[in-house]
Each structure stands twice: as C-alpha cells, then as structure tokens.
C-alpha cells in the first residue's frame, strides 16, 4: 500500500518535472511551431484546383511533383564532378571593364542589376600605383570561411572544389555573408527577379500533371525544378553567389562569364589536368606555366582561405584607365 502511493506520487512528481522541462522549451517550441505552421500554410496555399482527366475537379498539391525531382538534382549537385579541381585564372592586364561577364552571369542566374555573382571592381592598391579593373567572382576557397560557419550545411564544398548553395536548405541567417572576406555573397532581400514567372510556371506545371499531359509537363519541368548547380529559381530570404557555372561544367562548357568575355581575361580549367582554357580565344595553356610566367597570385593570401581563383598582375595593361580615378568612390570614406 505504502509502496503503491509512493509509486503513484513519483509518477505525479515525474509529470511535474516533465512540465518544468516543457515550460523551458516553450519559447523555442512556439517559434518552431509558428515555423511549421507557416510552411504548412504555404503548402495548403499551393494546393490548386485542377480538372482531372475524367473531367472532375480535384485538388492537387502544387509542391509535390516538383519536390521529388529536387532531391535528385540536389544529390547530384552535392557530389561534384569526379576527379576535377576547377580553377579560374583572371588576367588583369586584359580587363577593360566591358562587363560582359557581369551581364552574362546576371542573365543566367536571374539576378537584378545590383546583384552580382561577379563584380568588376575598380582597384587602386596604393596612392601612387596605377588603378586597374578587377573582376571578382566567388573565390571558391579550399578553406572556405563561409562554409565553416553555415549552421545547416546549406552552403557546402564539393569534391571538385566548387562552393555551392542549396537554397532549399538555407535558413537565411547570413553568417556566411559576414564570414566571407571577399564580399562574394548576396542575399534575396525581396522576391527574386523572375519569381512571378516561376510561380506561374509552377502552377501551370501542376495543372499539366493533373491533366495527365506529361509531354508538355516535361518540357516545363526544367523551369520549375530547382537546379542547385545554377541556383535557379532563386528564392526570397536565401543566399546566392557565384557557382563557377557548375551546370555548364557538367556538360563540358566554360562558365557563363568566361565565355562571355570579349577581351580574353578569363582562363578556366581543371587543376588536376594542369590546364586552363581561355574563354575568348579558346586557347588551352598549361596552368602551372601560366602562373609561373606571369607571377600569378591569389587575393588575400594571408587570410589562409586558399582561393581557387588566381589573378595575373595588371602589368602592361591593354587599355587606358580613365584619367579620373574612380577609386576615390571606395567605401573608405
């Protein structure tokens, strides 16, 4: 009898303690619950009415058919190209600020004019040295500070050296932005440029699936499927940055910016093959020789980030720099 009451009491006591612990997690729990609800609400929103093949009005989950595909592409995107170590060489002597690289990049990745995966900067290292133009993509560091700090593995480094972003994973904390010394990362503060188009396509896609029109749906599939190697469609509240055009590399093509340059600034290739190919002349040269003969260097070597982008110094520049140096517009006020 006595034992019984003790047992009973201890259970009650246990429950009390559970209550105590529960109250401790209420704050976090509430936040998470709100998050779940938010996503759930979004999901139900994306349920759409569609006519089935039998001419019946049915409700279709707008997300589902797309999402299965996502994982496949994301898996592939995380693996990288076996045996490769991509490397870029930028010849500063040849850059004359044509900005074709920026244009091509923004076009490929659906970016706004002020969003740069690659940005041509006007540099001047010290007062009496010559100004020069410096295209600055993500450096795809071998010791990437941005990846180190990511809490959810949304940005990651692949076997072939490319640092990518999975915007289906990104929680938008922007720690990576803070950690990157090259200011290479951008954030979607608003709905991305082509969001409306994407939403429309998604709706149409679900409709086609519902109608059983697989042929047309397949054509549309590419437009609604998130490609982690292209980071398109871009998403509000997530990070984007230069991806070394991982989607193009997979099919044997040079990156968008590299191919677009009219001035032969960019070389791109595989460090494992010791070869880089110029995007303009398509001439392939030996990487080690190119760096050796032109005194190639990397940005901010002292930070230990080990970039995969090399620069050739802006000597014997092939363009006249404007008289009025623009470097006084730098952030350093």
């Amino acid at each position, binding site marked *: 009898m006595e034992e019984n009451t003790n047992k009973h*009491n201890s259970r009650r*006591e246990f429950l*009390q303690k559970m209550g*105590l*612990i529960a*109250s*401790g*997690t209420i*704050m*976090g729990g509430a*936040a*998470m619950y*709100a*998050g*779940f609800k*938010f*996503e759930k609400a*979004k999901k139900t929103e994306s349920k759409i009415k569609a006519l089935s093949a039998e001419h019946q009005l049915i409700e279709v989950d707008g997300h589902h058919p797309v999402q299965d595909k996502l994982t496949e592409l994301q898996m592939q995107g995380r693996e990288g190209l076996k045996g490769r170590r991509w490397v870029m060489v930028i010849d500063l002597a040849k850059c004359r600020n044509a900005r074709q690289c920026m244009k091509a990049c923004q076009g490929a990745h659906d970016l706004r004019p*002020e969003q*740069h995966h690659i*940005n*041509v*900067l*006007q540099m001047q290292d010290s007062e009496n040295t010559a100004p020069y133009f410096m295209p600055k993509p993500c450096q795809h560091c071998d010791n990437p*500070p941005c990846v*180190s*700090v*990511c*809490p*959810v*593995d*949304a940005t990651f480094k692949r076997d072939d050296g490319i640092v990518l972003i999975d915007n289906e*994973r*990104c*929680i*938008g*904390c*922007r*720690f990576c*932005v*803070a*950690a990157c*010394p*090259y*200011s290479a990362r*951008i*954030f*979607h*503060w*608003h709905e991305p440029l082509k969001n409306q188009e994407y939403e429309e396509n998604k709706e149409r896609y679900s409709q086609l699936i519902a109608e059983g029109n697989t042929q047309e749906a397949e054509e549309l599939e590419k437009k609604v499927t998130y490609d982690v190697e292209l980071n398109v469609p871009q998403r509000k*509240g*997530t990070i984007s940055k230069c991806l070394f055009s991982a989607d193009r590399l997979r099919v044997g093509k040079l990156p968008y910016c590299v191919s677009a340059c009219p001035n032969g600034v960019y070389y791109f290739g595989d460090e494992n093959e010791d070869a880089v190919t110029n995007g303009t002349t398509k001439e392939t040269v030996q990487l080690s020789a190119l760096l050796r003969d032109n005194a190639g260097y990397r940005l*901010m070597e002292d*930070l230990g980030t080990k970039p995969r982008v090399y620069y050739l110094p802006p000597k014997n520049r092939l363009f006249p720099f404007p008289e009025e140096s623009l*470097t006084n*517009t*730098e*952030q*350093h*006020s």
Partner: protein
Amino acid sequence: MDSTLPVDAQKSALKKIIDDVARNIGINKKFHAWMGFLTLLLFVCLYAYYIQLRDGLGVAGIRDYVSWGMYIANFVFFVASSLIGMLITAVLGLSGVKWITPVARIAEIIAIGFAAVAGLVIVSDMGRPERLVYVFIYGRIQSPILWDVTVVTTYVLISLILLYLPLIPDLKILSRNPMLPKWLQKTYELLSINWKGTNEQYQLLHKAIKIMSVLIVPVALAIHTVTSWLFASTSRVGWDSTIFGPYFVTGAFVAGTAFLIIAMYFFRKNYKLHDYLTDFHFDKLGKLLVLVSLVYLYFNINEFLVPAYKLKAHDAVHLKALFSGHHAPMFWSVQLFGLLIPIVLMLFKKFRKPLPLMLISLFVVIGSWFKRYLIVVPTQEHPFLPIQNVPENFKLYQPTLIETAITVASFVLVLMIITVLSKAFPIITIWETAHEKGIHEPEKLSIDKAE
C-alpha cells in the same frame, strides 16, 4: 543568527514578510492596464513582423554588405543582459555575499526574460524563419550558430531551474495563504513537491542550488563567448579580435547590472518593497556596477588602443569611422554617457542612492544597447574589397521603422515575461529572508497561522 527570538515574535515577523510579498502576487487593475498596454504595443509591432514575413527582410535597412543590423545588435544586447542571473546567483552567491538575498530572484527573472526572447530575436533576423527546425535536423557542429542555439537553450533551462529551486519553500509557505486565489494556492501546492522544510530536504535543496550555481557559470560564460564568436570567427576588421569573448562578457555584466538596478527600483516603488530592497542594496549594486564598468572600460581601451597604435590599413579606415567619421557621435556618446561619466558619478555615495543610481543605470543600459550596434554595424561598412556597382543604400546602413518596431516587440516581450513572472511568484525570497531574520521553520509557522 538570533536563535533566541520568541516564537510569537518570529510569527509576527514572518507574517509581515509574507504579507509584503503576497500582496503583489496575482492580478490587479494596474497589472491589467500595464499588460493591456504591452499587448497593444506588441500587436502593432507584430504587424511589422507580418510585413517582414510577407515582403522579405528587405523591409529592414540591411543589405548585402551590412547584412547584420539592428536585430543582431539587439540579440547581442539581450544575451548580454541575461548574464546578470549568473553574476548574482552564481558568482556572488557562491562567494557567500549575503546582500544578494532579496535581489537574486529579480536577477533570475530578468535572465529568463532576456535569454528566452534572445532566441526569438534571432528568428526575426532569419530570411527563412520557417526553416528554423533545419538547425536541429541538419545542424553542423562546426558552426558557432549551433553552439549558440545549444547554449542559449541550456541557459534558459538552467535559469528556470535556478528560479524554481529557491522557490520551492516559498511556494509551500504561500500555498495556504488566504490572500491568494484558490487556484493559485493549488498550483503552488503542486509545484512545492511535498516540501515540509525538514533538515534533509533543506540539505538536498542547498545541494541542488549549489550544483546549479556552479553549472550556470560555464554555461553563461559560454553563451556570451559563443555570441562573441559569431563575430570573432570571421576575419573582418573590428571583429577579428582575440579578446572578444571576455570583452563581451564584461560588457554583459555592465548591461545586466544596470538593468537589474532599474528593475529593482521599479519593483521597490510599485511593489512597496522598501524594507527589503533598501538603500544599502542599491549602494552595493552601485559599487558592483562601478567595478564591472571599470573592467569593461579596460577592455575597451585594449580593443581600440591596440589597433589605433598600429593603424593597419583596414583598421585605420574602421577606427576613423568610429573616432571621427560617420559613427563618431554615437561612439563618443556611448563611451562618455554610457561608461565614463557613470563610473565617475557612481564613485560618490550620493549617486548610489536609489533614484540617481536608477537614472545613471538608464544611461548605462541605453549606452550598452548602442554599444552593441557599434560593434555589429560599422565593421560591415568596411569590407576588405571596395563596395561598388550597388545602390547607395547598400553602402551605409540605415535602420527602418519596421525593424525598429520588431526590435521594440522584443523588448515588449521581455517586459511581459518579467511582469508575468513577478506577478505569478513571490519576487522576494521569503524563506531566506526569514532565515536571515532568525525565523526558523517558516513553513511550519506559516501553515500554523493559516490553520
């Protein structure tokens, strides 16, 4: 201890303590008005958050270069303020400081309020708040954010336990008090887990409190050190500092102590606790604030003098912006009105009286908030590479009304938590006060009285 006090005297002394404390428990008109005001304010501010959820973080002034703004500064401030719980209960408590008895519970409540809401402040800074759960599903243990989430949750939990443990005898004492509504009495009875006030129980309780007081020290140090690592783990100018951990922790003691003094002043006035929160306590806390401020000043000198002596290229740009540039007015106001002048004033006894000390603390708290802003924002305006080919508002950070409102919401939440906790539980510990006054076995005496 005056062990010769007659039982009747003990009883009447205890009755006064219980009455003074119990009077403030429960809901009254003032509470309704105050909570009504806070709720209204909260809803207005939550509308701002709704706008942010709908339109994206772009409604705030943060952009690609200054991508951490007021939210993160506020988060750091909240974590900082929450450290006061550890300073009072653990550091002073373990070293046997007696005067903390009536202050400890207020400190613990403040700690819970700020630490709990700090987690929500971080959520308000997320571009994808609905993916918060990913941190638990896909968490990378290399990320300081994961450590931060871990230690902040742990700190809230430990603070709750440290609030609860010393409450147990008080709950028992009050569980038969007719001044409280029946349901509250029942809840207290339930929460007091069979407390009888036996020696064995007291031994167990003291042991538990001691263990938790020890445990909270490393956890509290961890929560603010890890928060400082969110910055120090990057190579940015102004953040890339090895003293950021202690710099943040000492700064936290300054902010927390000042906030505690303000809270004490209001509890003393509104809850009529002049007999418990005396001038003596304010005097002591004033001295404590001077001490921690001096340590913080020392870290400030280190943090700015060392790079200013060398003037490395990027450091120079950053320091110039703080000392004589864009941020100079705020920087010098914070250093002068938030640190230097308060230190000097509080050296004089008459400024450690409740009212002047509360006013000084107000300056210190406001200074502390802007200090966090100055740690977070200016650094990002000076990256290693120039900011070019972007609109003007990318270059200099300008907080918007919406993010200000969301920040206000977080303060409202803290005040609500503090208010509710201080209304739901005795704000002054009864049994410890009773023990100090030579009243033995307050549990028995109070029950006798009720029966």
